[in-house]
């Protein structure tokens, strides 16, 4: 009863119209304007384009900061505000307006996106300085920021989908930015196709919402959940999860993220670490009402998170490419967030909390990796690094702070957020709590191992394993300053947010009972011990011992991990090959030698198409016969039916 009244109270406090949301459109408009000017202006904007894009991104952050401060001045129940932009699709009963929802959750994202995004704009000024296509790069970055803001500010699933597709497009364009290299273009295509699978899930989920609730805006869907059956909610929840898996590189749609590292490093930092890949977590948390009505779907979210966090961690142990190791780590950390989001009300706030701290420390480490590559002639093989701490002091220190943060060493950022997730997982209780809790705990140990491995192999170790003629040097200030800012965040953000009461601040978004926080001291001690064990193991193997310049063959697990646990082979074996064989057997038995590698479904349709095409033989007489057959068939069908 108590919870019911409380949830009614929060429903009643649903977004007020206008208010501080009135200027929220500026957040999106500014970077969108930048993208438009740079793309349409062509070569004329080459000179000032990058600086303009960076400025507009900062301007967007400034607007966000003003809205945030206004929000702080209001009472907790008045902080959510809604601004209707225009009546998007007025089709009879299907009224659909495009509007922005500014609440605690979306503002957390807005600040993360605009702040980290702007820092990465600045970093890119240095990183991309000599690239002839610099302007196009900045245009895409602005496009990304604008789309991502649409995604998090949308007040309906349909508008969210627009942003969702927009960030997908920006990600595609940026992964394939150096598309003169065919391997990079292939990576972009892979990301595109895997993401399509996820997008299909999301779009079907939206259609099902239409069918179930008659509306697709968040407020109506949340209000309609009580009237829907559990089966409907479970179906919608699972489809949303498919969407989230695609965008956030969660098992089983994780294969694209590693390849996406083909893009320029600032892109990896912004899109494939800090912001876009976390959109899946946002989607799940935003849809909390649906998942609470569908416990099975919620459990599926937690399971997907648990599998991915271990999967990413294991893969991360074997990667020698610094960016791919970081990518595996991203996958694993998002697994943590997913798991937290799947725990229910107890985990939402920590999922978002970890998302924010992760956004800082992972972006910082990616920028650090970029700085290392910048100094080492684009070398990415960690076996050819070693003892870089002397040559690149700033990079070393800033990266080190990120490393401490991800390990969860107090008082750095990860400690405050990741530890809470581990605690919450155990707090679920029962077998489920034990399984999920142990997964997070073991994950923490492996994370400590592979991140320390990465850190030691790059900056420490017995000797320098550089290729001949390498003269590592520190990067210019445009690159180091953003790294320093982010590393301060890695150091302090967790503590600040924890003491400022981030969980309470987010609470009105989810409603329900506010649960008390109490720290589980023994568990924290065990976690730290596990982390320390992972760290020591890495120290012993990669600092004290010599690291071979060429990767040793390793045991079976290492080999498997190095091959991403055979994800591509599995994809190929499970989906592509049977599809291809099936189509060969069914369609191409008489037309041998058709290139079947185009993929199963495409080949089926292609085969069907070639068959049909024969009807189009160019003879009028057979066209006329087709028409006559059609007429007779339609008449026949109707005659039989009536």
């Amino acid at each position: 009863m108590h919870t019911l009244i409380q949830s009614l109270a929060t429903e009643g406090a649903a977004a007020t119209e206008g208010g501080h949301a009135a200027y929220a459109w500026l957040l999106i408009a500014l970077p969108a304007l930048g993208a438009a000017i740079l793309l349409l202006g062509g070569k004329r904007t080459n000179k000032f384009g990058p600086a303009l894009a960076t400025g507009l991104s900062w301007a967007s952050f400034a607007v966000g900061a003003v809205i945030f401060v206004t929000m702080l001045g209001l009472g907790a129940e008045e902080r959510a505000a809604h601004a209707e932009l225009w009546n998007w699709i007025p089709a009879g009963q299907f009224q659909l307006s495009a509007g922005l929802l500014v609440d605690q959750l979306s503002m957390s994202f807005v600040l993360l996106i605009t702040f980290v995004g702007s820092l990465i704009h600045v970093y890119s000024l240095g990183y991309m300085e000599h690239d002839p296509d610099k302007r196009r790069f900045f245009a895409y970055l602005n496009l990304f920021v604008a789309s991502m803001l649409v995604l998090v500010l949308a007040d309906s699933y349909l508008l969210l989908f627009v942003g969702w597709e927009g960030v997908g497009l920006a990600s595609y364009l940026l992964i394939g930015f150096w598309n003169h290299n065919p391997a990079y273009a292939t990576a972009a295509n892979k990301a595109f196709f895997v993401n399509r699978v996820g997008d299909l899930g999301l779009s079907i989920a939206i259609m099902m919402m239409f069918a179930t609730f008659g509306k697709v805006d968040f407020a109506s869907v949340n209000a309609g959940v009580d009237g829907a059956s559990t089966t409907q909610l479970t179906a919608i929840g699972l489809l949303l999860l498919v969407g989230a898996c695609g965008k956030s590189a969660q098992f089983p749609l994780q294969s694209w993220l590693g390849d996406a590292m083909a893009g320029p490093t600032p892109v990896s930092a912004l899109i494939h670490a800090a912001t876009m890949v976390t959109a899946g977590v946002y989607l799940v948390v935003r849809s909390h009402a649906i998942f609470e009505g569908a416990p099975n779907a919620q459990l599926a979210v937690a399971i997907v998170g648990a599998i991915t966090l271990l999967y990413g961690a294991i893969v991360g142990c074997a990667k020698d490419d610094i960016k791919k190791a970081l990518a595996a780590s991203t996958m694993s950390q998002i697994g943590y967030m997913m798991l937290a989001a799947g725990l229910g009300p107890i985990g939402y706030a920590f999922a978002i909390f970890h998302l924010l701290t992760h956004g800082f420390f992972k972006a910082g480490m990616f920028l650090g990796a970029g700085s290392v590559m910048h100094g080492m002639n684009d070398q990415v093989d960690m076996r050819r690094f070693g003892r870089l701490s002397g040559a690149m002091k700033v990079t070393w220190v800033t990266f080190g702070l990120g490393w401490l943060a991800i390990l969860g060493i107090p008082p750095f950022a990860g400690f405050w957020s990741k530890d809470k997730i581990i605690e919450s997982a155990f707090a679920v209780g029962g077998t489920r709590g034990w399984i999920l809790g142990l997964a997070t705990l073991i994950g923490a140990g492996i994370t400590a191992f592979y991140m320390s491995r990465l850190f030691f192999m790059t900056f420490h170790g017995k000797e320098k394993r550089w290729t001949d003629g390498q003269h590592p040097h520190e990067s210019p200030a445009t690159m180091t300053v953003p790294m320093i800012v982010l590393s301060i965040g890695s150091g302090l953000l967790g503590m600040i947010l924890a003491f400022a009461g981030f969980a309470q601040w987010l609470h009105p978004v989810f409603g329900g009972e506010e649960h008390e926080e109490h720290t589980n001291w023994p568990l924290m001690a065990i976690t730290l011990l596990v982390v320390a064990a992972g760290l020591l193991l890495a120290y012993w193997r990669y600092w004290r011992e010599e690291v071979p310049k060429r990767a040793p063959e390793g045991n079976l697990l290492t080999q498997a991990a190095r091959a991403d646990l055979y994800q591509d082979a599995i994809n190929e074996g499970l989906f592509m090959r049977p599809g291809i064989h099936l189509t060969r057997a069914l369609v191409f038995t008489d037309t041998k030698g058709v290139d079947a590698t185009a993929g199963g479904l495409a080949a089926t349709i292609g085969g069907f198409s070639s068959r049909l095409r024969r009807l189009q033989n160019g003879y009028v007489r057979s066209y006329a016969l087709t028409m006559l057959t059609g007429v007779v068939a339609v008449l026949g069908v109707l005659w039989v039916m009536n």
Partner: protein
Amino acid sequence: MSAAVPAVFEAVKVDYAAIAPMLVVVGGALIGVLVEAVAPRSTRYGAQLVLTLATIAAALVALFVWAVPHKAVTLGQSLAIDGPALFLQATLLVFGLLGVLAMSERFGGKSADAFTPMGASSPGSPQEAAATRAGFATSEVFPLALFSLFGMLIFVAANDLITMFVALEVLSLPLYILTGLARRRRLLSQEASLKYFLLGAFSSAFFLFGAALLYGFSGSSDLKLIARAITTNSSQMNGLLLPGAILVLIGLLFKVGAVPFHSWTPDAYQGAPTPITGFMAAATKAAAFGAILRIAYVGLEVSRWDWRVGVGLIAAATMIVGAVLSVTQTDVKRLLAYSSVAHAGFILVGLLSFDGNGIAGVMFYLVAYGLATLAAFAIVAMIRQGGSEATHLSQWAGLGRKHPVVAGIFGLLLLAFAGIPLTSGFTSKFAVFAPAIHSGGTMGVLLVVIGVLASAVTAYVYFRIIVLMYFTQAPEDDVVALTPSVATTIVVTVGVLATLLLGIVPGLLLQLAQDASTFLL
């Protein structure tokens, strides 16, 4: 037998204000014929172009000033100037204006670039060469286009099966000729023209037969009286209704390229001069759907439960075949032809919802699709290799690098055809699918499911072209995009702006279409 009543000849009342746009267009076309006869050859191109554009502009003005406030059923019940008719007539006039602008493109030459100097000469003959040397130009394409436009304007307003048939022929005959006038690949063009003509005649026969059966059923060719005969169930020949309805609808479905009456579409689209293809795809489709709307919602609405399934089957087949066949196309024009077939299927889904929103959705779709198509074909006409149009897909490889703007615009139009959000393609698909789900019953839902799957297939096709333009190494060849004149630039700009605006703020036009979705009886 009752005694024969002596026929009293009564002069029909004509509401001239309501039909003013049509009168202006046919007047302009007739003057165009005179210009062709008397004006010296060197001035004809300019004179015809100015005359045609002025005619269409005047018709548009007449439409808004006189016809819109004067909704009426006039000319002895044979023309209904009502909401849908006016909306579609305005649409057709805009398509006509843009179509004529695209036809007038010269690319720096002396006469319209897409048309042969002498339509009557056989391809490759000395006669043709002589005509080229002498600088002949077929400037009669402009009056022909006007005549066709005139037929279309009647077609969407025809309230009577005979008027509708006459309009059908008036709009078709000039198109048959225009299809055969391509400057390049003359044989293909003439073949397309002949095929289009033969199959068009075949489908006209179906229409006429159906009209005769409906007359036999109801004793009238007036749509309102046919509807009344169905309602009162007064006929002794009930068996004639269903075959009559289906045959009339089939005659019209031929014009929109519905499967299995679509076979002419790829051949005619490929062979026709590219601007004519664009005009056909946009305007003919709009006109034919206008006529189908009127037949389905005014004449045969009461008996729809009998024939709906038949048209539903056709819609499903149209979407599937159009989408699937577009996969293996290697020629841009043929690919767009199959795409237009698939789009006809999507529109039929909305049409079958029998709901005011369905009418509005169909009309909105026609505007959105037509404007994008006109622009797309205008761009196809610009891509050249060695002087002739480079329509093979392999020639488009790497175009994005050589001509980023042109390829970018074409990419945007393809995204609209694929129905990506924030383009007109998305809103228009939404506008036809939503009413189908809402009031189309089980069949409506099934059709929408097929429609969504078919759009997924077509999306693959369009994305493949985008990938081809941007991510494929351009072969070392001389494929170029010619610099267009103001005329083509206007067509492309309007198409692009409409594609974006109708995607982002479709509310205005949707509202307009909804307000205009009531038929006068």
